């Protein structure tokens, strides 16, 4: 298998390459560095898709991937909810960890080489607040930093820098990202506008493709509401491309019923097969906040948490099988994440409180299978305050997927990730031909040079009237208004940004011309 060939070239540390741009260390991985690929291969557009599966509530990591290597200490720390050693699902090629007995689907995927387990993913100074931790995972910020945009939003803003002005267009006809089953996500928030569309529920998807409206009251108000809804559906920018994509797929393989994650993933598979160029899909599944009674009291292999894991496992297995049936399996990688893991020691009510590091799953034919990282070690006598230390920063997983799957050039990764992160052996890197950002749409603001050290010249095109260019940091704070005035004539103008003593890093130049706005990402380097 091609995948195996790449395994032998991978080693679990990042290799430092010489700095390519002033002061910024570039890390790449392995002998078949994508960086080298990009020098050797023609620029092509990738057809890769990334599916993000959010497990909301904080999934209990060590009851999901059980640390068999330290079983007695694990059992000791949470006797009332520990999975019996004999019931843990075995994974081919390792005795160190196994899966919760409810996850037979993921066990099969692992043994087929389509699942990767990454141990102990987290970040420094973890937050134990759902909201804050969710924001950290979605924005890829440091723990003490409030970044106003999402990591996928920044990626899409990098890939489609002019969005939304001039979109959709012949080059990009489709939504940049699609969220299913929820009305909003910070993940797809770009520096100024949201880069995605959301399909708030699976039923609203079927309403859309079937042209059905939600019921309105049989009153005058109901009549006008229906009228507005009809126009809204007609003018939903991407309604027709979604309908067309859905219509191309008449048959899919079987998904489990009464499983909302499976319902969402079924739609994702359909849209991928239907030909959307959408790069990122987001789905979510909730209920992992298991403070009490997470297992059955007499049989810890069943109960609330087991049901959740079973649904996740069955949904992903069905999705992977469907992708194979639809013959698009090689185009898709999926990733699960949760805002945090849970406490090592269980509490007296048969549950676990908010914790820190936890395992992540990657799935697809192009992941490098196996288990990454050491088995999380567990104190001999765990106390209520003990948490698992993290081995891998979650942003290393994001950075790797961006670089090695969504084919972001290493030189540009920092624009998206805001910092440099170690790349990990997660993806069959030979699959990625590095592309250049799609510059379709209408370009109203640029800067040169970029990256810059001290000053950079910003060029913008105004249609006349009040025009503003302002510099913002990644937290969304306005640092300076470079331009804030009326222009009698339309045209292109330039203004110089002197960054003075501002620290190196990512800045945004936001252009505003009455109703129009566009954001340019700029990188200050040493």
């Amino acid at each position, binding site marked *: 298998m091609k995948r195996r060939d790449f395994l032998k070239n991978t080693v679990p540390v990042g290799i430092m390459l010489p700095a390519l741009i002033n002061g910024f260390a570039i890390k790449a991985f392995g002998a078949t560095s994508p960086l080298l690929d990009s020098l050797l291969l023609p620029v092509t557009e990738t057809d890769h898709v990334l599916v993000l599966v959010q497990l909301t509530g904080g999934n209990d990591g060590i009851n999901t991937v059980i640390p068999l290597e330290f079983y007695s200490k694990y059992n000791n720390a949470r006797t009332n909810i520990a999975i019996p050693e004999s019931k843990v699902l075995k994974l081919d090629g390792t005795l160190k960890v196994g899966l919760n007995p409810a996850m037979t689907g993921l066990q099969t995927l692992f043994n087929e080489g389509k699942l990767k387990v990454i141990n102990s993913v987290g970040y420094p100074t973890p937050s134990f607040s759902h909201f804050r931790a969710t*924001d950290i995972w979605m924005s890829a910020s440091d723990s003490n930093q409030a970044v106003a945009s999402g990591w996928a939003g920044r990626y899409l803003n990098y890939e489609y820098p002019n969005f939304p002005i001039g979109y959709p267009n012949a080059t990009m006809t489709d939504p940049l990202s699609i969220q299913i089953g929820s009305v909003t996500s910070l993940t797809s928030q770009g520096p100024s506008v949201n880069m995605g569309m959301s399909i*708030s529920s699976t039923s609203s998807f079927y309403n859309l493709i079937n042209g059905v409206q939600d019921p309105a009251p049989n009153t005058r*108000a109901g009549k006008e509401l229906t009228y507005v809804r009809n126009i809204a559906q007609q003018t939903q920018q991407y309604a027709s491309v979604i309908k067309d994509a859905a219509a191309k797929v008449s048959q899919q393989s079987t998904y489990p019923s009464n499983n909302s994650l499976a319902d969402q993933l079924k739609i994702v598979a359909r849209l991928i097969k239907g030909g959307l160029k959408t790069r990122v899909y987001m789905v979510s599944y909730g209920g992992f906040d298991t403070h009490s009674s997470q297992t059955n009291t007499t049989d810890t292999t069943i109960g609330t948490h087991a049901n959740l894991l079973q649904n996740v496992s069955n949904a992903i297995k069905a999705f992977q099988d469907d992708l194979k049936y639809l013959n698009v399996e090689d185009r898709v990688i999926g990733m699960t994440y949760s805002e945090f893991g849970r406490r090592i020691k269980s509490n007296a009510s048969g549950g676990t409180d908010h914790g820190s590091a936890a395992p992540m799953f990657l799935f697809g034919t192009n992941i490098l299978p196996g288990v990454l990282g050491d088995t999380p070690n567990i104190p001999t006598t765990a106390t209520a305050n003990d948490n698992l230390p993290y081995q891998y920063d979650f942003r290393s997983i994001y950075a790797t997927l961006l670089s090695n799957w969504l084919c972001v050039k290493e030189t540009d990764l920092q624009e998206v990730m805001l910092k440099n992160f170690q790349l990990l052996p997660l993806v069959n890197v030979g699959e990625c031909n590095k592309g250049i950002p799609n510059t379709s749409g209408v370009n109203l603001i640029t800067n040169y040079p970029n990256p810059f050290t001290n000053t950079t010249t910003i060029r913008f095109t105004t249609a006349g009237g009040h025009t503003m260019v302002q510099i913002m940091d990644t937290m969304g704070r306005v640092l300076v208004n470079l331009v804030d005035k009326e222009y009698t004539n339309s045209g292109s103008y330039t203004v110089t940004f002197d960054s003075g003593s501002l620290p190196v890093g990512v800045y945004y130049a936001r252009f505003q011309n009455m109703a129009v706005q566009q954001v340019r990402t700029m990188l200050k380097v040493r």
Partner: protein
Amino acid sequence: MENTKDLQSIIVEADTNSPTGRTTTTLNPYTGSWTENEVIHLLKRIMFGASKADIDYFKSKTLGQTINELLNPTAAFPSPPVKEYSSASALTQPDTLITAGQTWVNDPNVDGTIAALRRSSFKKWWMGVMINQDRSIREKMTLFWHNHFATETADISYGNYVYFHHNLLRTNALGNFKTLTRAITLDPGMLVYLNGQANTAAAPDENYGRELQELFCCGKGPDSKYTEDDVKMAAKVLTGWRNNSTTFSSYFTLSRHDTTNKQFSSFYNNTIITGRTTANAGDVELDDLLNMIFATNEVSKYICRRIYRWFVYYEIDANTEANIITPMATIFKNNNYEIKPVLDVLFKSEHFFDVANMGCQIKSPLDFVAGMCREFNIQFQPSTDYISNYGHWSYLATWAANMQQNIGDPPDVSGWKAYYQEPQFYEIWINSDTLPKRNQFTDTMCLTGYTFNSKKIIIDAAEYAKTLSNPGDPNILLSDILKYLYRIDLSAASKAQIKKDILLAGQTSDYYWTNAWNTFISTPTDTTNATTVKTRLRDLVKYLMNLAEYQLA
């Protein structure tokens, strides 16, 4: 095949005649409950949006007290627009006499560039006046009369004329319709717009004589049977008026006046208006003309239909015509065309508070924009910083214009189509171009706001939430916001999903929101928590304004 077709058409017909449009309520006084629901309904119709402060103010009063107060404004009139523009000194007539920040309305100036700057200044100012309206019906009525006696600033040209025409509408907004009509007839702006100043005995211009009957007084109802000859005769009556561009007033010149007798049709009881040759012939004959027109029953019916479509709903079926329009018209005419008595009866009626008439208006762009500013209490600058304020008002007026309601410049003398075009009426506001713009506008106001002169206007959803009854409880928070923003409630399932997806970020326990909110209030310096709370609220408000329900009032 043929039969199926027939059946379908019958079904379609039955649908359009479904009970949705039916109401049997009358002008009898409303005696039902007076709760926030009724207050919000009333305020969303007769002001620009229902602000929390106004709702709280009126809900402690009775319906009678509320209507009495809304129809009898006591606030001073807004100060006139000021010079916020800069003008080059190389113009034909630079307006160097007016210093920055002082009003230009009394300063005559014939330079075309200055006229354009002043028209623009006027439009920005008017947007600001609507946003800063007093607690009364005055501004909604001023806009009503602008739509009724529609003029276009670009045609009137001089900003001074534009302003004084506008001021006439506000001054008479709640006064006497006949008095207003007379003043409008001799208003310099109108004399420019409908060519009255070019209407002479030698070369009559029928423009105003026609619209006086067709659009301003009689309308085109089934019983409005004035004739083409009546148009010609009215034009003759109106000959001889001209404008003085220094005093901004009109004057009569007998030598330009048609002094012959004017014979009208049977619609006007074959009235003959005697041609006069005195210096006041123009005034006397105009009074004769208006007395003749206002003696018909069409004027009161036509104006009451327009009032109904402005404040209640566009559809006027036989029931509504008989039970609402006809008695309103009688009151209007019996009160010698005083405007307040007819509004008073309408707004106190069981018909106005009929649930069938709630939430069925599609917000006009100005209602949408000004109402949003008022309902979210968007903060503008103190009046001394007029540069920033005019910049912000300009932005808002531009958005309303992009949504097809350009204040001061309706499409033509008929006003905006939403108030007369069968069968769509208000629905005309919403199309595949304007609906995305409405969403884009509210998105922008939630996310980045608009910065001008380094000052920003933006929706601060967290500050808004602080004004609500119990923002720490996500259920009450959501139901409060829906109560104030919407007129149609969402389903329980939708509310549950919105609460979970946005306020709870996917969590299932309400206390996570409660904790975050309480921390936000007790420790506002906790910036990461504050960000969490603010982004959730921002996204909630943004999302709710994108749903179809938000378009209704």
